[in-house]
């Protein structure tokens, strides 16, 4: 039984570890902060992986090595070992606190400083079950929105409740696809109109809840052009699984051209 247990525990350990590294599970990373974050994941993975292997292998080994072998077995009568206990307490404390400190700057870099003044302003609105994106237009100001004007089924401007009587709203663009320029910071303003949603772009390693009653600002910088999916990561009702949108990262010139075309169509 001891040998069988050893085999089972070791097999589980090796197979689990193998599939962690056999395939690069992460989506291709395209934001400025993603490499830092992936690096921190790798460091944590190595540290935890070593502890995982040592603990599981020792467990498997011990249950086989110290199985009841009748009179051959000599039990070491011991209530513990203070030196050992102090040692592993300090070691784990250093390991865990160290990891924490190492990862903190990544969190701080996106959150403790405001977005660049020149960042692209985009508002992302979540509602059951779609994302809408609003660009403030040439005036750089978001127009007024009113909850009573919201008509989700109409889509577009009506979906975010844009008050077209407000002069600042005249040049606001509302789209269902997020178009952003590459290598420029995006200053997202997140809103939710009914329940909590979560704005999740796996390729950007970006996630932030959109909460009713709160305006949340987050900034990120895409570094590669292409099309990337946006999901909802907070349970928002029966259509949660299909609440998604596309993000198109385009070159700066294409972005300007796209904006101009959209504005022209609107006028």
């Amino acid at each position, binding site marked *: 039984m001891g040998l069988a247990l050893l085999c089972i525990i070791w097999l589980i350990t090796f197979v689990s570890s193998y*599939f962690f590294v056999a395939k690069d*599970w992460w989506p291709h990373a395209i934001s400025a902060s993603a490499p830092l974050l992936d690096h921190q994941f790798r460091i944590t993975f190595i540290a935890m992986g070593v502890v995982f292997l040592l603990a599981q292998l020792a467990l498997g080994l011990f249950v086989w090595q110290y199985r009841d072998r009748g009179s051959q*077995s000599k039990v070491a009568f011991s209530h513990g070992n203070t030196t050992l206990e102090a040692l592993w307490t300090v070691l784990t404390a250093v390991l865990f*606190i160290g990891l924490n400190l190492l*990862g903190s700057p990544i969190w701080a870099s996106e959150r403790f400083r405001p977005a660049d003044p020149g960042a692209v302003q985009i508002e992302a609105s979540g509602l059951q079950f779609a994302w809408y994106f609003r660009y403030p237009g040439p005036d750089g100001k978001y127009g007024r929105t009113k909850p009573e004007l919201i008509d989700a089924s109409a889509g577009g401007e009506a979906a975010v409740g844009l008050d077209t009587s407000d002069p600042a709203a005249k040049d606001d663009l509302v789209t269902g696809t997020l178009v952003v320029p590459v290598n420029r910071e995006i200053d997202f303003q997140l809103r939710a109109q*009914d329940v909590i949603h979560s704005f999740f772009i796996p390729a950007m390693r970006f996630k932030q809840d959109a909460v009713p009653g709160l305006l949340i600002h987050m900034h990120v910088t895409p570094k590669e052009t292409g099309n990337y999916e946006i999901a909802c990561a907070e349970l928002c009702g029966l259509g*949660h699984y299909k609440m998604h949108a596309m993000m198109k990262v385009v070159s700066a010139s294409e972005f300007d051209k796209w904006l101009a075309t959209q504005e022209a169509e609107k006028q």
Partner: protein
Amino acid sequence: MESSHTPHTAHGSTAAISHAHAAPTGFIRKYIFSLDHKVIGIQYYFLALTAVFIGMLLSLLMRIHLVWPGAHIPLLGDIKPETYLALLTMHGTIMVFFVLTTAPQGGFGNYFLPIQIGAPDMAFPVLNMLSFWTTFVSFMVMLAAFFVEGGAPIAGWTNYPTLSAIPAAGPGLGLGEDLWIVSIALFCGASLMGALNFITTTLDMRAKGMSLMRMPLTCWSWFITAILGLLAFGVLLAGGILLLMDRNLGTSFFVPGGLMVSGIAVKHSGGSPLLWQHLFWFFGHPEVYIAILPGMGVASQLLSTFSRKPIFGYRAMVYAMLGIGLLGFMVWGHHMFMSGMSPYSAFAFSLMTMAIGVPSAIKTFNWLGTLWKAKIRFTTPMLFAIGFVSLFVSGGLSGPFLAQPALDIPLHDTYFVVGHFHLIMGVAAIFGIFGATYYWFPKMFGRMMNRNMGVVHFVFTFIGAYAIFMPMHYLGMAGNPRRYSQFTELAYLQHLIPVHKFITYAAIITIGAQFIFLANFFWSMFKGQKAPDNPWEATTLEWTAATPPPHDNFGGVTPVVYHGPYDYSVPGAAKDYIMQNDPATVSAH
């Protein structure tokens, strides 16, 4: 046993007198509205056993729907997205409250805490009975949510407003949601009653010689769990009442103004959805430890008993559990890194969360230290205790990923989290429950459980649990969000569907294996081999009692304790174990 008649201590005699209620004779007082902690413990256990099979079958339907969304289920028909969310909500709620909170504490704690500390019953038998029956009513109210108009709620076991606060936000958010809240409020009340009883019993009802530091680690774990329950359930109760008022009385604790839901303007204003998250997780994180601490106690007890060795570092184990309990109240914000709360507070919550890794690691090392140079007997309960350690390590080590706010950005609300918490608070805790069942079954029902069936059950469940939950970590890294009823809509999820299929197959096999346990349980109850009083050659007081124990547990005598709980293989002793109440041998302490 002459020593048993030595005079009681002052508080011991008071306790003995106030609890000298005569054994009931009628069926109703004996088995239904019983005051006997053993009967109440078994009632709790059967409630949890019913709940775990319901919760498990719900998860089976979920797994089938996830990979074959168009499948037609016999008797149930097609599973719609909202049905999936109702299954998800009820699976989580039933498992967390009516299984993981109920079986280890209400079940085994009720049955064995008084016996292990040498008491004739719990401190407040009537409160104990009331606590069980309130839990029972709570369970019935919860199940009723399936059958009302609109069906069971779809807001998840975390029940976040504003989804949970506004009936128009989806199906199941009408009467079903109200029933959910009422059920949870009742459950909180029952848990508070139970917690008071456990704390008082542990502090006031210990037999002579049973100092706190001679208590089995199981008793410590139930004691600390009760303290956590006392501090945590009150907060959830308050949150539930506020939510019920928001829904039915027009208050706005959790709902801000200016919302438009399904084309209807919401009339609330001024509330905050984050308030619920703070209240919920102030309860919810300690709840994780409420589920797992008794498992730690049981694992310690079993590892020491079947290693034939004292537990490695008894005091460190006690302090580690106290440390986990204390820190457990300071980390709720790690569930909210993405919620929109201040990013500065994430630092504090993260640091505290990483700090919990320290006492958790101490426990793991000490379990390994207990196995070191041991003489291991591979009984069925021991297999589950070893499995517990393995699962505790695996489930625990994914914690430090999620505890770092930066890494939580991609991993939050993905299958990585689902894999993490299922391994640690789901499967590890269930292994504690299985270990306890195989270990104490002989004392509870007077017969041994079948070993061969037990071994088969262990092998399938152990490998199966890993096969189900380990791949979920890979899915989470790939960005697979949780709580999706199907993965058909997002292109980047398509290549993950084979992994989901594998998980579903593993779940079907593992769930099937649980019927081996059920068969073993009921077969052994009636046909199992008769159990001696101390089949495992263990040291703690329950093994000195008759099998099954009489109404007052020790047949009119009060035990006196001379030894610590884990005196195995003491050099110079006649046998390789010394019972806690054995006056003949000098203690090694």
